[in-house]
């Protein structure tokens, strides 16, 4: 295994292996520094980027960043690469891949997805500027269809997130009705339960189902409990449209989440047998840079590369929804607004390149050096880059998870600012209800009383 070198000015740099180059080529992230694998300074970071730009894509197959002997995800990813297709790009350098992504016809690029290892998405992201990442993502839309069609150009959807600190159905219902009245909920109505028991999942699912059927809302429902709890609820006949699970980028991180590929395969088989949504895409996954390090499961690999591997897991199951929860894990992984902003557009790009229908939970916690202004700025960048969906929470203040994300008002304002519309089926429903006219909210919008029985 060859050592990698770079010469920059009168300084010489040496990297022992590909994993070290990948880690040091990252834009600055507190999580990589905490793991002790970040570049020592800005010049070493650039030297690593220079080395990476000349690495041939085949090297990522020949010299896996995380060896297949050590990790079941690596085994799955390597076995799933379309070898015939990969031979066509194996001799490209990572630098050349960047230029192809920015210049080639989008249809040709989309056709390359089955040849792309997740690590390649991370590698090329490390060479790209923020605007590169936005433009390349915009050129690679991922359109999926449940009861609504998501990811179409010119549209922006939202996950209505009506969380309640005691899993109360009345409080959840109030949040759902008001969210719908602001035009939110076209990606999914998805609630995080406090209490991970089957009867709670059933109660919340029934609560959403009652609203969805009474008002005939074209959307999906999801209860974000552990996947095993949802499986049991599904077996007992609960009205669940999607299965949800948080995923990590290593087998060890997934063990900390209480899952494995075998368990996801089993859940997928159950969904095929018992799922009620008439669509090919019936999964929802959440990810976020730093989760592997937080569970001591990063194997010395940088957090951007591990995040790309999360999308590698997600795409095996043809999801309807995937989002990074970009500012949630804490300032020890993404310290401030600059790091969160970068991570948000990196994650969105990597997901789209790998064929995953990416949304983003644009968010922050109160111990991070970021505020609502930073969050709004990132949401504008992502909406411009074609992000499939954002979260929608009353005033952006999640009263159960205790963090801040995008609000009902933010969703409406982003659509107004950038001329984006809700998912077509959902927009038609809003028009029918008198809440939307010619793509703009009507005077009646924002008042949940209009949606009461």
């Amino acid at each position, binding site marked *: 295994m060859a050592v990698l070198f770079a010469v920059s000015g009168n300084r010489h740099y040496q990297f022992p292996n590909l994993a070290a180059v990948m880690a040091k080529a990252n834009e600055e992230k507190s999580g990589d520094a905490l793991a002790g694998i970040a570049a020592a300074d800005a010049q070493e970071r650039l030297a690593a980027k220079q080395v990476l730009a000349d690495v041939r894509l085949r090297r990522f197959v020949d010299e896996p960043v995380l060896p297949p002997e050590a990790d079941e995800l690596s085994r799955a990813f390597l076995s799933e690469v379309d070898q015939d297709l990969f031979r066509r790009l194996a001799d490209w350098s990572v630098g050349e891949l960047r230029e192809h992504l920015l210049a080639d016809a989008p249809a040709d690029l989309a056709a390359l997805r089955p040849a792309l290892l997740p690590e390649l998405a991370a590698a090329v992201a490390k060479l790209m500027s923020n605007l590169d990442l936005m433009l390349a993502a915009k050129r690679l839309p991922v359109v999926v269809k449940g009861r609504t069609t998501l990811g179409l150009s010119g549209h922006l959807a939202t996950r209505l997130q009506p969380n309640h600190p005691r899993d109360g159905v*009345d*409080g959840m219902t109030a*949040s759902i009705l008001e969210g719908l009245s602001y035009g939110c909920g076209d990606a999914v109505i998805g609630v995080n339960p406090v209490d991970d028991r089957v009867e709670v999942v059933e109660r919340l699912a029934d609560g959403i189902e009652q609203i969805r059927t009474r008002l005939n809302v074209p959307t999906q429902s999801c209860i974000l409990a552990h996947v095993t709890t949802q499986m049991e609820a599904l077996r007992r006949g609960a009205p669940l449209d999607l299965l949800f699970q948080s995923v990590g980028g290593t087998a060890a991180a997934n063990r900390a989440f209480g899952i494995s590929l075998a368990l996801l395969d089993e859940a997928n088989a159950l969904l095929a047998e018992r799922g009620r949504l008439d669509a090919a895409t019936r999964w929802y996954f959440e990810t976020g840079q730093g989760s592997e390090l937080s569970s001591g499961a990063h194997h010395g690999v940088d957090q951007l590369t591990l995040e790309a591997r999360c999308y590698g897991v997600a795409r095996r199951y043809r999801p309807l929804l995937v989002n990074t929860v970009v500012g949630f894990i804490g*300032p020890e992984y993404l310290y401030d607004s600059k790091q969160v902003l970068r991570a948000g557009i990196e994650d969105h790009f990597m997901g789209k390149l790998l064929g995953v229908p990416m949304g983003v939970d644009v968010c922050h916690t*109160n*111990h991070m050096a970021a505020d609502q202004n930073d969050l709004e700025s990132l949401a504008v960048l992502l909406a411009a880059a074609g992000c499939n969906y954002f979260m929608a929470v009353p*005033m952006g*203040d999640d009263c159960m998870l205790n963090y801040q994300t995008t609000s009902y008002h933010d969703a409406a304002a982003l659509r107004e600012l950038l001329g984006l519309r809700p998912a077509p089926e959902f927009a038609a429903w809003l028009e029918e209800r008198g809440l939307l006219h010619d793509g703009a909210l009507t005077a009646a919008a924002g008042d949940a009383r209009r949606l009461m029985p």
Partner: protein
Amino acid sequence: MTAFERLRRATPARLDVGRAGSRPRTATLLDFRRAHAAACDAVWSEWPDAFLAHLERLGFLVVSSAAPDRRTYILNPPLGRRLAPGEADRIRTASAVAQDTFTPTLSQRAREKKGAPPPGVQLVLSDGLSAMAGARHCDAVVPRLLDGLRTLAHAAVPVAVRNGRVAIGDEIARRAGAALVVHLIGERPGLATADSLGCYLTYAPGPSTTDADRKCISNIHAAGLNPNEAAASIAGVARRILDAQTSGTALVL
């Protein structure tokens, strides 16, 4: 009350706030920003000198974690779980002096009669992610809690930690030779409250202790568990733990 009002009152979510075009009303926006400002200030706040002097008057030994400042503390959680160099010796010395003047309580004598070792209990107060929480609720919680703990076991010299995280209590208890650590620590501020205190109780703490080995009483603040009543709740849990000789998942409270 309308049917919607009834639903709305069932949740603390910021609902029914109206709009100015697609944006929030001015008062709503400023109210939200005010809550966030309080939370941010709480995260970066430190105990003032007057409070440190007050802690010493209450009998606390004040020590520092290995995180030298707030920024390092936020960026490097492992440092907040370890004592700064030299602090372990100060804790050992303080505990040894206190042992000399220690008179066993009745329950302690009863335990010794049964052949059990004296179960020392260590109270720790850390700033955590909200120094304001400890400073604000100290007087309501700490004196009552110390009284309560002293009826259960020998109480080691209480220790206050600057830039501390939950697990630092484990090392402090080991240095003091205590079987149970009762750790009050400022919780990560939410928008609803910036001065919430949590309490982690850990029996036989050691290097391999995980969060599953702890019991936690959270949300100690004016709108949550009343700080004036918190000491009794915590002492009650401490009693259960000492009786069961575990604070792990085997003990269901």
